[in-house]
């Protein structure tokens, strides 16, 4: 059963009855698409961000650090990647997380697993993937993202490149004792409500613009228009998608709805996945901020390992699904 059937009916009613746009026209298709997707995404956004915030209130980064500092290498990489999903990640938080983890003795590779997973699989991306692509592609994205985070961390850990971290980072050691705060359920729910509202305020405009442009493309651009340039047979489509994705991080919320429409117009799935992963996981501002705690060489290694993982995922899915 389609949970969003009532929304679908409402969108149709609004488009064709209230606005009296003739059905089966380009304009009708575009307006209907825009209303339906916008309502659907905002419902999902409210529910999923709220649930993730409540879970997060039990697992603040300080507690995650405590869990990770006592785990062996591989378990650590897996756990760090999974825990990375529920942690909010903004470019600002990269430094405190990195310092806090490394100085408490979390291995460098495990720290990187976390740094990769945290921005790549976040709750807003999750909502948009689920809403625009459906649960199958959302799951593919999450599983590939987790694997990239786990393996990038393991590879970086194996390289033994602790010397590429700025000296002051390792000079300071702290214990991973946490400042534990016991919150009442009421506070958790209130905080989650505030946080959800903050997120919606922050991203709504990007999402509406993204869906708006998407709706226009959906209605006006012929299907398979892009197939010629960005189909699975074009070897350069995946690397191109990755390169274009790197500077777009701050607009991730608007880009996913846009990209979902492009797949409709003939862009191959692997290329789409690679593009979205590059947008979320490889961010230029984050690299610039990380320069304060690590040498450029380490940032390049980090970006290359993750970038290769994304390329591999892109080619893999283009090859499998075509």
């Amino acid at each position: 059963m389609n949970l969003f059937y009532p929304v679908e009916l409402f969108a149709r009613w609004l488009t064709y009855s209230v606005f009296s746009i003739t059905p089966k026209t380009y304009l009708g298709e575009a307006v209907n698409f825009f209303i339906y997707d916008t309502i659907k995404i905002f419902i999902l956004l409210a529910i999923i961000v709220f649930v993730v915030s409540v879970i997060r209130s039990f697992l603040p980064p300080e507690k995650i650090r405590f869990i990770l500092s006592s785990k062996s290498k591989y378990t650590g990489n897996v756990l760090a990647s999974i825990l990375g999903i529920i942690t909010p990640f903004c470019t600002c938080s990269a430094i405190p997380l990195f310092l806090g983890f490394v100085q408490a003795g979390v291995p460098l590779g495990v720290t990187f697993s976390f740094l990769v997973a945290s921005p790549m699989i976040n709750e807003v991306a999750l909502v948009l993937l689920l809403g625009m692509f459906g649960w199958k592609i959302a799951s593919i994205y999450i599983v590939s993202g987790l694997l990239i985070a786990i393996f990038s961390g393991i590879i970086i850990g194996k390289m033994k490149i602790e010397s590429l971290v700025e000296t002051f980072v390792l000079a300071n050691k702290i214990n991973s004792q946490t400042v534990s705060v016991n919150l009442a359920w009421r506070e958790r729910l209130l905080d989650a409500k505030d946080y959800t509202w903050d997120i919606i305020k922050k991203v709504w405009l990007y999402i509406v613009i993204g869906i708006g442009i998407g709706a226009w493309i959906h209605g006006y651009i012929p299907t398979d228009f892009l197939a010629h340039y960005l189909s699975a047979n074009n070897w350069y489509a995946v690397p191109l998608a990755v390169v274009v994705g790197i500077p777009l991080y701050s607009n991730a919320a608007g880009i996913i709805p846009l990209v979902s429409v492009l797949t409709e117009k003939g862009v191959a799935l692997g290329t789409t996945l690679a593009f979205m992963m590059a947008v979320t996981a490889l961010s230029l501002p984050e690299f610039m901020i990380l320069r304060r705690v690590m040498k450029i060489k380490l940032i390049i290694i980090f970006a290359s390992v993750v970038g290769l993982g994304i390329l591999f995922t892109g080619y893999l899915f283009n090859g499998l699904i075509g």
Partner: protein
Amino acid sequence: MKIEVLGSGCPTCKMLFEITKKAVKELGLNVEVDYVNDIQKIIQMGVMQIPVLAINDKPVLTGFTSDIEKIKKVIQENL
């Protein structure tokens, strides 16, 4: 008493600093609020989220909030 907002210079950290100054003023306290741009100090406090509101070197609020009433409440509780 010492009230500090610790951050990395990011926009949300500056915002918390401004709101905290306003909260202190509205509470009628005669205390200067300081902005400290020192992440190492935040890490030493055992916190990994920025910004941090600290009273007498004790972190009382971590992460950003725009809720001035909440800020007033933690200040009063930790006077």
